[in-house]
């Protein structure tokens, strides 16, 4: 099997190459005395009959030839002159495919021009490298995702609600109120009497008051079935299904993006063995511009090489430890991990207490703003303090530098998502009265004394989290980063110069984005306008981060590999999605909806709107859906997907095996070549000696 032919399957560059031996063509290389066996061989008269005859593949092959432009133009002329004998149908098809390809190229050019923030991203990548650029690419992905989610929600929930509100053609279906449940339907969101002017400002920040009974929150939507002439629109069903489709849409986007990133990783064999050669040959970013960026990149590469050499030394030292020292090291590491775990649990307890306190105290004076924001403040503080302490502890653990970075990241991710989870568990336990006796929950199924409309309260909590996250980013930028840069630039103390300018640390910033997006996913069911708020927030954050990057920051010394880190960001985002999905499923299926507000006020479970409206479908649709849900369909489907999965796994393992076989063959061929060259030399030496004698 010809290795070159199979490796370059589908691309012509593997079949063509250049030859060192002199030919009538002008070549770019200086002629070498040794016959050139190492460079790829060029076949000037390729066997066209072995390839397909489509015109487009000829054009693609031409672009990929490693020849000077004049030669390529000459080849093109020769190709054009070779008029193959084809029928009229084939020639028509060929010209149509040519125009289609041209059209696709033009369209691709226009789309790339229109792509959001393309110039900004190029500039960022040019000055700070691929790692920082991947953060901004991730941010752009989230902005587009949120915008399309908002369009989805607006078209299916918001616009029909507005239409039916203004026309008031729908009517609230009467709910069956049993005795003792009248207290559940009491809901008064608007404050009574005169309010101070600053209340409006507080309301804007916390989502209470004039903002509470509005399209922003769940409580405003009615369970109307808007009926106009022959058209009926079931708003509760639309609300629920839109939330479900929104989640699935986000999941599909993430998985597609992960797939394209994984494809690159799998093609290159996953584990990047061979760090030194790869660093030397692929370490330099040719797109870097600017004197400062270049010098920093050179320092960066030098730092990486020194770190790699240092890691080797550490590994050698670790391998030479005695048994006693190893046991001591591992027990030290176990102890330090326990301390880290204790810190994290301490943070969780603080969040739990803060949430309980803030939910049970609700006044309307200015101090109450702090009380309302208490969970957000505690979460943000914990996410700042605990990783900092963990970093100091990690210095004692004496891992290799790369392991330290990965460990710190894993701990930070776990802390972020788990603190959000603790907040939600606290809220849910209060709503369903699991922390106190069940008395307050008996009439309505939820804690009606604290929460007249619990979904709106949860929505407000998520809104507050998102707002506080945004305010933190702006505040840190204004109060920490700009002053730091001014101090570093104007002050000439040694200590200040040592601390230096701010570094743009990519992983922490990405975790902040994932946290913000997870909050939006959790809150979207209760606060339908949260995606559009988040879109605006992320756009503002993009420009603020770009500004702080160029004015205040220097590139980080320890950079992140851009391709493997892209996959890591998407994986963390997926974890956030899973957290949000659990939350949504639990609220939809387990908690009793509020009886005083919202589209589900007449039901005992949010999900029941789907079976209820099921019966209004036509009987053939009902039968079809019954069939899909029954065992006769799902079991064969399950078996079929298992078969497909095992086929894909077998295919992947076969590809892996053939790749390793080809690599071994390559090695053998090289050795054979060396052996033969040596034999040729010996033979020629021997024959020359014989001639001399």
């Amino acid at each position, binding site marked *: 099997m010809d290795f070159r032919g199979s490796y370059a399957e589908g691309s012509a*560059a593997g079949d063509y190459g*250049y030859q*060192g031996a002199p030919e009538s063509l*002008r070549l*770019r*290389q*200086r002629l*070498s005395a040794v016959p050139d066996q*190492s*460079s*790829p061989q060029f076949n000037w008269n390729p066997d066209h009959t072995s390839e397909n005859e489509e015109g487009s593949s000829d054009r693609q092959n031409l*672009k*990929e030839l*490693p020849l*000077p*432009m004049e030669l*390529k133009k000459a080849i*093109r002329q020769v190709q054009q002159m070779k008029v193959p004998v084809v029928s009229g149908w084939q020639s028509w098809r060929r010209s149509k495919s040519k125009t289609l390809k041209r059209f696709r*190229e*033009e369209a691709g*050019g226009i789309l790339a021009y229109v792509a959001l923030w393309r110039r900004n991203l190029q500039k960022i*990548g*040019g000055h700070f490298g*691929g790692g920082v650029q991947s953060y901004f690419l991730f941010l752009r992905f989230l902005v587009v995702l949120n915008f399309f989610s908002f369009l989805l929600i607006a078209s299916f929930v918001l616009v029909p609600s507005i239409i039916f509100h203004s026309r008031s053609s729908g009517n609230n279906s009467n709910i069956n109120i049993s005795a003792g449940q009248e207290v559940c339907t009491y809901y008064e969101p608007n404050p009574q009497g005169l309010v101070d002017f600053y209340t409006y400002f507080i309301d804007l920040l916390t989502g209470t008051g004039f903002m509470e009974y509005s399209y922003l929150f769940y409580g405003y939507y009615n369970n109307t079935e808007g009926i106009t002439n022959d058209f009926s629109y079931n708003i509760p069903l639309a609300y629920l299904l839109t939330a479900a489709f929104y989640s699935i849409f986000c999941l599909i986007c993430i998985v597609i993006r992960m797939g394209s990133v994984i494809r690159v*990783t799998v093609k*290159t*064999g996953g584990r*990047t*063995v*061979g760090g*030194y*050669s*790869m660093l*030397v*040959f*692929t*370490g*330099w*970013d*040719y*797109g*870097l*511009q*600017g004197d400062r960026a*270049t*010098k920093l990149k*050179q320092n960066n*590469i030098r730092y990486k*090489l*020194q770190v790699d*050499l240092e890691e080797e030394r550490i590994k050698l030292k670790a391998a030479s430890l005695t048994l006693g020292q190893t046991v001591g090291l591992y027990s030290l590491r176990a102890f330090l991990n326990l301390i880290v775990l204790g810190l994290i649990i301490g943070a969780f307890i603080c969040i739990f207490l803060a949430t309980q306190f803030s939910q049970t105290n609700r006044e309307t004076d200015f101090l109450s703003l702090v009380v309302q924001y208490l969970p957000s403040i505690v979460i943000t503080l914990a996410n700042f303090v605990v990783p900092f302490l963990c970093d100091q502890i990690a210095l004692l653990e004496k891992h290799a530098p790369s392991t330290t970075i990965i460990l710190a990241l894993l701990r930070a991710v776990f802390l972020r998502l788990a603190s959000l989870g603790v907040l939600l568990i606290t809220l849910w336990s209060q709503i369903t009265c699991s922390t106190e006796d069940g008395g307050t929950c008996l009439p309505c199924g939820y804690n009606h004394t604290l929460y007249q409309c619990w979904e709106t309260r949860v929505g407000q909590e998520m809104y507050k989290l998102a707002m506080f996250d945004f305010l933190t980013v702006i505040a840190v930028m204004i109060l920490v980063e700009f002053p730091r840069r001014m101090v570093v630039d104007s002050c000439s103390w040694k200590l200040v110069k040592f601390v230096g300018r701010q570094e743009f640390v990519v992983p922490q910033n990405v975790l902040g984005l994932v946290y913000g997006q997870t909050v939006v996913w959790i809150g979207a069911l209760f606060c339908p306008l949260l995606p559009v708020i988040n879109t605006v927030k992320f756009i503002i954050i993009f420009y603020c981060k770009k500004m702080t990057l160029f004015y205040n920051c220097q590139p980080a010394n320890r950079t992140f*590999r*851009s391709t*493997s880190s892209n996959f890591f960001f998407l994986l963390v985002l997926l974890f956030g999605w899973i957290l949000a999905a659990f939350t949504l499923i639990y609220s939809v299926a387990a908690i009793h909806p509020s009886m005083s507000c919202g589209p589900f006020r007449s039901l005992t479970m949010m999900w029941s709107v789907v079976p209820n409206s099921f019966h209004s479908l036509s009987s053939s649709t009902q039968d079809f859906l019954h069939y899909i849900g029954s065992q006769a369909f799902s079991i064969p489907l399950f078996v079929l997907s298992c078969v497909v999965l095992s086929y894909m796994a077998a295919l992947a393992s076969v590809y892996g095996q053939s790749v390793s076989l080809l*690599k071994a063959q*390559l*090695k053998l061929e*090289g*050795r054979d070549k*060396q052996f033969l060259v040596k034999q040729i030399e010996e033979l020629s030496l021997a024959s020359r000696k014989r001639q001399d004698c």
Partner: protein
Amino acid sequence: MGNKQTIFTDEQLDAYQDCTFFTRKEILRLHGRYHELAPHLVPMDYTNEPDVKLPLALIVNMPELKENPFRNRIVESFSEDGEGNLSFNDFVDMFSVLSEMAPRELKAIYAFKIYDFNTDNFICKEDLEKTLNKLTREELTSEEVNLVCEKAIEEADLDGDSKLSFADFENMISRAPDFLSTFHLRI
């Protein structure tokens, strides 16, 4: 676009579009950049294919190449005579190979040429040392340079001749996920 340009004939633009990864607009823009490097030497009218070559010193002053430590090698690899004098065809070729649409195999061929300082079709230890010094601005100690070069050759050399042939190089590049994004010049 609507206006008729007179720099190239349509036939020439078609040929450029087929032989490179650029569209017509980008080729015209590249001609503008080539022209502004030496406005007196480069004619605005290329319909009769003038034989104009710009020297190395002018090309490496472009902002995209100015701080690249391999700028001389890049320009030399794409020139006909190996001395760095680029005609417009070579100029377009260079940016086409370094653009983001060029496939991995094509870029690997030219990357090998760039890093092969003594143009003997092998990357030997001296070539590696020169590459490393250019990468780190000669701030590594000589024993570190030695160590890194030995380790790099050890990792990538498959046929055991203690220098890298094109096959070794291409095999190593195929395992590098970052190569496509770093071997990319934006213009």
